[in-house]
């Protein structure tokens, strides 16, 4: 029996790095410090696994699966590479190399979660800080369209609500916590102020707060379902905070005009910095979605939605984002890495995925693998393979390998390298 300490959880953007995992005979038998989802990830990582590669539903070996994938990708005119957020940085690096080699479009799951955040970050920037700084200093925390009690289960205990810090020695007592949401949640029951707003009215509410912070008189009695006196009190509290934070989620990005919502929220935080220290952080979902954007930015200059069809990188969300490319029925082949777009894209985008040769690299059976022409099983990153991932605040953290994968099951990065090598041969050594 071996106990691994300081294990990093490869589930959400919190990348909790204090897990203790007990392994016996190459099997995980116990976890400590895991949240409910992390527990499920570690204890069920062997369930519903892909055990061997398949081509057209027929069991095959890795070499044939790679060769067939290479033929499809090398001959495609408009191949799409999609996923990336649930793998480590080396595999993301390889994916971008592959996209350039085949002149394809590459996009990550960021486009359907915090894509509007990335667009804003590229255009006007985000005023951010690390989660450690927030834990130690922040006395006003606003969760806007985000609910860590369902999606980032240890966020409140590790960083934002309960922990004691250098300038927050009494933990919860030193923080005023606000939740803004369209329905009641577990979070809304434990905060100091809950604003239940009307759906698709975030932009109006943020704009009203900006106006109040700037000293403009608002004539309306309520905005987005919230009485103006409550907004005035909140604006005053924001200006007087020692260190304020907006943690926002998909409530802003996936509602109507998501990019405008994020733009307005960043504007509010920018305005508040004339009065005090205020930062804004997106609650990134997949454990390495921040890494997908970061690595992609190093290598191509752009964070997602990149087209290599002209031999160099071009960036255009709305054109080179996966849902748009599929909706226009443009892609003629797709390679999916560590993602399940068939389960998570709107129906009409999924429809085109069913019409083109689909190659999927994943650990488990999912809706996309069930519809794929070629399926290649991979080792689980952070359990059976090591690598680097970026936490939601941009801190890179090394994931550990704690058990050996089954024989013949390789990490994503090695599978992608084999694919790249084969395609180079097919393209005459290019």
């Amino acid at each position, binding site marked *: 029996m071996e106990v691994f300490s300081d294990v990093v959880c490869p*589930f959400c953007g919190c990348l909790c790095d204090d897990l203790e995992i007990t392994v016996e005979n190459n099997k995980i038998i116990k976890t400590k410090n895991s949240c*409910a*989802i992390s527990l*499920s*990830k570690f204890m*069920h*990582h062997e*369930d*519903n696994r892909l055990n061997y590669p398949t081509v057209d539903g027929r069991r095959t070996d890795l070499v044939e699966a790679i060769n067939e994938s290479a033929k499809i990708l090398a001959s495609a005119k408009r191949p799409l590479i999609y996923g990336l957020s649930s793998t480590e940085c080396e595999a993301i690096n390889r994916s971008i190399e592959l996209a350039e080699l085949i002149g394809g479009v590459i*996009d990550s799951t960021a486009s*359907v979660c915090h*894509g*509007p955040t990335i*667009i804003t970050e590229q255009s006007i920037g985000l005023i951010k800080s690390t989660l450690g700084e927030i834990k130690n200093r922040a006395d006003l925390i606003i969760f806007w369209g985000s*609910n860590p*009690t*369902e*999606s980032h*289960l240890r966020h409140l205990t590790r960083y934002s609500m309960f922990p004691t810090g250098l300038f927050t020695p009494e933990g919860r007592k030193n923080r005023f916590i606000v939740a803004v949401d*369209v*329905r*009641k*949640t577990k979070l809304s029951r434990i905060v100091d102020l809950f604003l*239940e707003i009307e*759906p*698709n009215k975030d932009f109006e509410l943020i704009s009203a707060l900006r106006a109040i912070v700037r000293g403009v008189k608002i004539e309306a009695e309520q905005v987005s379902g919230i009485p103006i006196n409550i907004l005035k009190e909140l604006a005053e509290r924001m200006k007087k905070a020692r260190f304020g934070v907006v943690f926002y989620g*998909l*409530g802003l990005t*996936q*509602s*109507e*005009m*998501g990019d405008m919502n994020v733009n307005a929220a960043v504007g509010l935080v920018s305005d508040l910095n004339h009065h005090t220290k205020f930062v804004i952080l997106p609650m990134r*979902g997949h454990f390495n979605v921040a890494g997908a954007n970061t690595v992609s930015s190093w290598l191509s200059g752009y964070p*997602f939605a990149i087209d290599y069809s002209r031999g160099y990188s071009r960036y255009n*969300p*709305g054109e080179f*984002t*996966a*849902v*748009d490319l599929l*909706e226009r029925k443009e892609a003629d082949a797709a390679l999916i890495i560590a993602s*399940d777009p*068939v*389960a*998570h*894209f*709107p*129906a*009409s*985008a*999924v*429809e085109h995925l*069913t*019409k083109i040769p689909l190659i999927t690299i994943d650990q*488990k*059976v*999912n809706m996309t693998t*069930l*519809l794929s022409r070629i399926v290649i099983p991979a080792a689980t990153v952070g359990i059976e393979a090591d690598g680097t991932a970026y936490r939601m605040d941009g801190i890179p953290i090394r994931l550990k390998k704690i058990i050996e994968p089954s024989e013949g099951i390789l990490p994503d990065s090695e599978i992608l390298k084999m694919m790249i090598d084969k395609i180079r041969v097919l393209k005459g050594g290019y």
Partner: protein
Amino acid sequence: MNEVVVTLISARTIEQGIGLEIGKTSEQYQNSVSVIELNPSDFESLEISEGETVEVESDYGSVLVKCRSSQDVPKGRAFMPYGPWANKLFSSSTRCSGMPQLKGIKVRVKAAKGLKMPSIVELIDELRRL
């Protein structure tokens, strides 16, 4: 037939997270995401019992799911966890942002007594026939 028009919000849940880590074809995952929650008053107006199948229809598609009553959901709104059932209702239009609108769309909900909700395998078979 009784029908309510509500604004649909989709989002993550703990049960969905636990289920997807077991596997997308697992019973836990399917049970966690094939559901719509309505405010008790909207729920009562459909004259159905807890867990009964309803048809949810948007301008872009329709799907059969089980229906639950929840005090957390305000009147006139509805909640569904992310997943293949909810995604049958959303448009792929992204207004040039890359992001489809997955929250805040109008849907019609009506009782579908006697109709069976599709399983994940049936959803896949449906896609294979396209």
